[in-house]
């Protein structure tokens, strides 16, 4: 099976997962006790007003009808209206998603760029000081709550040293006229990087540590492999063995961990956004839950799931690309 057909097949397989996410979130959201209309209108609304709102948001229909109509409207790209914001859910998500994606991408970039050299050096110099240092860094990284790293970073680098801002985020593509103290796009980007630095480390540390650990153990395994022994026996230089023979095979578990880490990081984004007061998807979903905004809860969860599913498909394809032994579903 060709790579293209495999990719299409994986996307097709993702459809039931997406339907599953819609189903889980729909029924969880409807299980939530309390009345969203009451929250919106206050404790003593008029009866007519309540009924009008119920009809407007379709809350007067039976559950299964609401589920089916929600499924069909999701399929056509309509995520409904947010009761709390009084705007289409999709519009709110489009406003917030770029913020979270920017945070996630920078966190993963930071994680991968630091973790792969750390892991490889650690494996190559096993049980030497460099290995011990790298292992201690990654051990602390996987053991520290991301939100606490955020708090400590704020205390030290924002309050005590004053190097970075403690709150908020500037988008690099924002219009310079909307950003205080920025005259050109370059200054906007500079401010953006300035704001992004602490949240990036806060969110990326766990990923960095996890990738380092897997990279190390995978490289240790790989360096003990038969093909490496064979290459050594043929007199291939050790640096070539590490770079070419051992490294490529060792990246398979690393890719798996990055794929799995996507979910952790999306959850972590909720905490990081809370700590740094960043108005992204994480804050949006918490606001939705706090205000029992069903449509917004379902919409944001679905989009979180969608981002993750695409990430997993990409890792699966990368897997096949790196490991020629993987067949694309031939039986």
């Amino acid at each position, binding site marked *: 099976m060709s790579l293209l057909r495999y990719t299409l097949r994986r996307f097709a397989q993702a459809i039931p997962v997406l339907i599953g996410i819609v189903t889980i979130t729909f029924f969880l959201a409807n299980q939530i006790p309390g009345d969203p209309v009451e929250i919106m209108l206050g404790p003593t609304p008029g009866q007519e007003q309540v009924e009008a709102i119920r009809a407007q948001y379709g809350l007067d229909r039976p559950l299964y009808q609401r589920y089916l109509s929600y499924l069909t409207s999701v399929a056509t790209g309509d995520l409904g209206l947010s009761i709390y914001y009084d705007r289409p859910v999709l519009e709110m998500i489009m406003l917030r998603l770029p913020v979270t994606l920017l945070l996630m991408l920078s966190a993963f970039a930071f994680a991968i760029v630091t973790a792969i050299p750390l892991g490889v050096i650690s494996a190559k110099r096993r049980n030497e000081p460099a290995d011990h240092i790298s292992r201690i860094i990654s051990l602390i990284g*996987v053991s520290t709550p991301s939100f*606490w790293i955020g708090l400590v970073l704020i205390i030290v680098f924002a309050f005590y040293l004053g190097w970075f801002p403690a709150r908020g985020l500037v988008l690099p593509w924002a219009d310079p006229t909307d950003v205080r103290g920025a005259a050109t796009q370059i200054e906007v980007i500079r401010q953006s990087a300035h704001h992004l630095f602490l949240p990036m480390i806060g969110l990326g540390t766990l990923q960095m540590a996890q990738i380092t650990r897997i990279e190390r153990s995978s490289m240790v395994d790989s360096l003990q492999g038969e093909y490496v022994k064979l290459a050594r026996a043929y007199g291939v230089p050790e640096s070539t063995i590490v770079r070419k023979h051992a490294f490529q095979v060792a990246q398979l578990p690393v890719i798996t961990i990055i794929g799995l880490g996507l979910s952790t990081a999306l959850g972590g984004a909720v905490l990081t956004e809370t700590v740094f007061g960043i108005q992204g998807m994480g804050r949006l979903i918490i606001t939705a839950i706090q205000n029992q905004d069903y449509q917004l809860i379902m919409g944001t969860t679905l989009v979180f799931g969608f981002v993750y599913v695409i990430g997993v498909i990409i890792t699966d394809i990368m897997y096949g690309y790196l490991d020629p032994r993987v067949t694309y579903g031939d039986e």
Partner: protein
Amino acid sequence: MSTNSATSDDDTPNGGDESGGGPDEVEARVGLRYTLKQVRQDTTARVGSYIVGFMTLVAIFAAFDYYVLNYAIAEAVLYNPEADPEQVRRLLPPVGMENQFGEGVIEHPLGTDHRGRDLLSRTIYGTRIAMTVGFLATAIGLGGGTVIGAVSGYYGGWIDDVLQRVTETIYAIPFLVLVIAFMTAFGRNLTFAMIGVGITAVPVFNRLIRSRVVSIREEDYIEAARAAGVKDRNIIFQHIIPNSFAPVLVQATLQVGVSILIVAGLSFLGFGAQPPTPSWGQMLSASRAYMLPAPTFSIFPGIAILITVIGFNILGDGLQDALDPRINN
């Protein structure tokens, strides 16, 4: 490749990619006594087991004092971690330090929180929530993930496809959001926090067990068992699962740490243990408002989480080294 000191045969199937050996040798390797012996011999694992052991004892003590004695010991030795003191000395720094609220006093070695409660006492008693949720959530995830992963990996085909899509669906919702939505729907208490965190761990064990099963499924001795007419269920539970004991034990140990981190995050967002019950995440959440005037308030609950999770992580790492026949001790 060097052989582990406890076995005489390099071909034990526990290594994953090695073949040969038989069930007898597997049992010799997977037993509890063997594990304990390996942990004692491995320095890292030993240090990890001391931290985990100590934290477990603190948690048991805290649970005993809370459930049985209603904080009698806490009041006699330190302070009741839940009750607001009559004479309020709020946001005091640790002893020997000073902030705008006053100087640290010896009665409150780590200082006090925003309601004047003793931070040392609250940090110690916060261990109970963290450890309970950590262990029970992991047990839930382990049970669910093992069954799903084993069945899925062994049978393959459409069963595998369906089960993997279901766990993928669960995993596709960011765990924090899933647990929060779950708790909002069913109840904001620790029981649902535990179940919720447990559900998020199911895909982790599922993936692990499934990948082990897929790689072991084609081993000669499994083929032989199948050819000899051994029932599928027996092959799964008597050969494949015991064969995965080492990586599962390692993963479970690490997962307790992960669960503690998730619960801390939940409490931080206000979805874990509710005040005044002492929990580390909730202490950190309260400290956020006072980061500038009283930064030390944010430090100790975080250090408590860090040390506990480090304990589980190095125990897990040590176990991995100790139980992996391919690594020379």
